């Protein structure tokens, strides 16, 4: 295996007295899709900013592959009214491209009609697509998406995931995606990392297809693109994010016999080895109990 594109080792960061990153170790390999999930305020964006070099960690080390090309799609892009900017001009923000190339990538993301539109008059969904189109022009090795599905319904989410998958197929790049949705992730995710100031657990998602109920709920189209992530925590966080004793959280059963009861305390990190218990339970647990159900 070649060296990872980005690797963070033992990252520690505090804002005032608040420890936001607590000894985090994480790496992203070439071509891998990683989804970083966690509740609001868990420090997901801070972690990504630290990995990208936008934020300096107090301790720990970030190594990047030299000359790594990163395409970054921020959570929100608010271009001020005072700055006139057509979509075409935005696409060439950091790198020049011909009009026909711009048109081509806009067609790929299904936004071919906006090339001469002002950025400030685009809808949220259109802005998202235009930002994705821009990364297609950049041809990055790593695509970083900060909550791309925020405010998008399940169908739109499935569509977006398919688009991201197409982009990855074309660019052959790695994808790092942040999501605040704790249970529904992109089905093609290679690794889901549940993060709340530290890596709580990580693993691979199950496809919705395995859950007939969801399949009928989302429709067949969406079901193929969306995956379900089943958490395997051995601790809980209180409202302030501190670790407290306990078996599980998120209100679903995790009682499947893989507890590491001795891991409580602030230095706690679960590595990728914690992707346990998803496919090989000895006791059959009713599927319906294991997954989160929408209210």
């Amino acid at each position, binding site marked *: 295996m070649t060296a990872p594109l980005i690797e963070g080792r033992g990252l520690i960061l505090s804002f005032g007295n608040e420890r936001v990153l607590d000894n985090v170790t994480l790496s992203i390999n070439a071509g891998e899709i990683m989804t970083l999930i966690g509740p609001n305020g868990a420090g997901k964006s801070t972690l990504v900013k630290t990995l990208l070099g936008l934020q300096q960690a107090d301790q720990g080390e970030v190594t990047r592959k030299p000359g790594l090309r990163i395409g970054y799609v*921020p959570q929100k892009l608010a271009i001020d009214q005072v700055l006139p900017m*057509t979509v075409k001009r935005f696409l060439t923000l950091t790198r020049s491209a011909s009009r026909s190339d711009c048109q081509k990538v806009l067609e790929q993301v299904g936004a071919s009609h906006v090339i001469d539109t002002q950025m400030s008059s685009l809808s949220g969904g259109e802005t998202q697509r235009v930002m994705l189109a821009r990364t297609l022009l950049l041809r990055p090795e790593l695509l970083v998406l900060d909550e791309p599905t925020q405010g998008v319904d399940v169908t739109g989410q499935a569509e977006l995931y398919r688009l991201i998958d197409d982009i990855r197929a074309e660019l052959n790049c790695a994808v790092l995606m942040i999501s605040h949705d704790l249970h529904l992730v992109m089905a093609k995710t290679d690794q889901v990392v549940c993060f709340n100031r530290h890596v709580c657990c990580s693993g691979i998602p199950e496809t919705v297809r395995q859950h007939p109920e969801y399949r009928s709920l989302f429709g067949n189209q969406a079901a193929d693109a969306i995956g379900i992530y089943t958490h395997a925590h051995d601790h809980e966080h209180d409202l302030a994010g501190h670790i407290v004793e306990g078996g599980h959280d998120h209100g679903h059963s995790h009682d499947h016999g893989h507890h590491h009861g001795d891991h409580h305390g602030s230095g706690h990190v679960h590595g990728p080895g914690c992707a346990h218990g998803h496919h090989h339970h000895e006791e059959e647990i009713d599927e319906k109990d294991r997954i989160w159900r929408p209210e």
Partner: protein
Amino acid sequence: MDDFLTRAVIGGILLAFVCGPFGAFIVWRRMAFFGDTLAHSALLGVALGLLVGVDVRIGMIATCLAAALILAIGQRQSRLGSDTVLGMLAHSTLALGMVALAFVQGIAVDLMAYLFGDILAVNVSDIWLLGLGGGLALLVLIWMWRPLLALTVSPEIAAAESIPVERLRLVFMLLMALVIGMAIKIVGVLLITALLIVPAASARFFARTPEQMAIGAALFGAASVMAGISLSWHVDSPAGPSIVISAAGLFLLSGVVAPLMRRIRA
């Protein structure tokens, strides 16, 4: 270039061309108050220049650069809001400048000329300074145009895509200081901000891209200079304020004309 009017027009138009693209960035980056603060500090430069015995233009450029550096470092470490930091520096340097000027012996300083500019007193060396210094500032700005614009749109995108964000910010501040330091002789401490932001604001009505707005700002600035000088010539009004009034008039006119043009085109 014997004629003072010719020199005024040449100097003013040179300045307008430099101020246009800079003004556009100042408007986009919301740095109008920052520019104003640098201009205020220039009066201290006049006093220092006279006390030390160097050219006052050198003194003005030097204090503007120093103020920019202080702000670049100070704003990052301060707990105060940036408007507070700027306001404190602006007024304390202005006051310090006035006090220092009172101690300059034997030379009657025409304070009004520094506050409101004296474009009709532009001499050949001023034009050389503007042409070379302004040209240099403009060249550097064009050279860093794309990354600086990316930084203006989104510092996160810029940094993620390996643009040296902090260095660019600092270089832009220093360039602004250079331009403002050179401009004060022409439009004065109190009017330089207007010459930077008003033409850019007028150009906003017509521009569809950042580049169109920058070029438009240069053209609006040049038109304001010409209109202001002729206003001054015909009704014997002070030249600096007349230029600013012309710029404001062009802004109002643009606000009326631009929607009409759009309606005709549609």
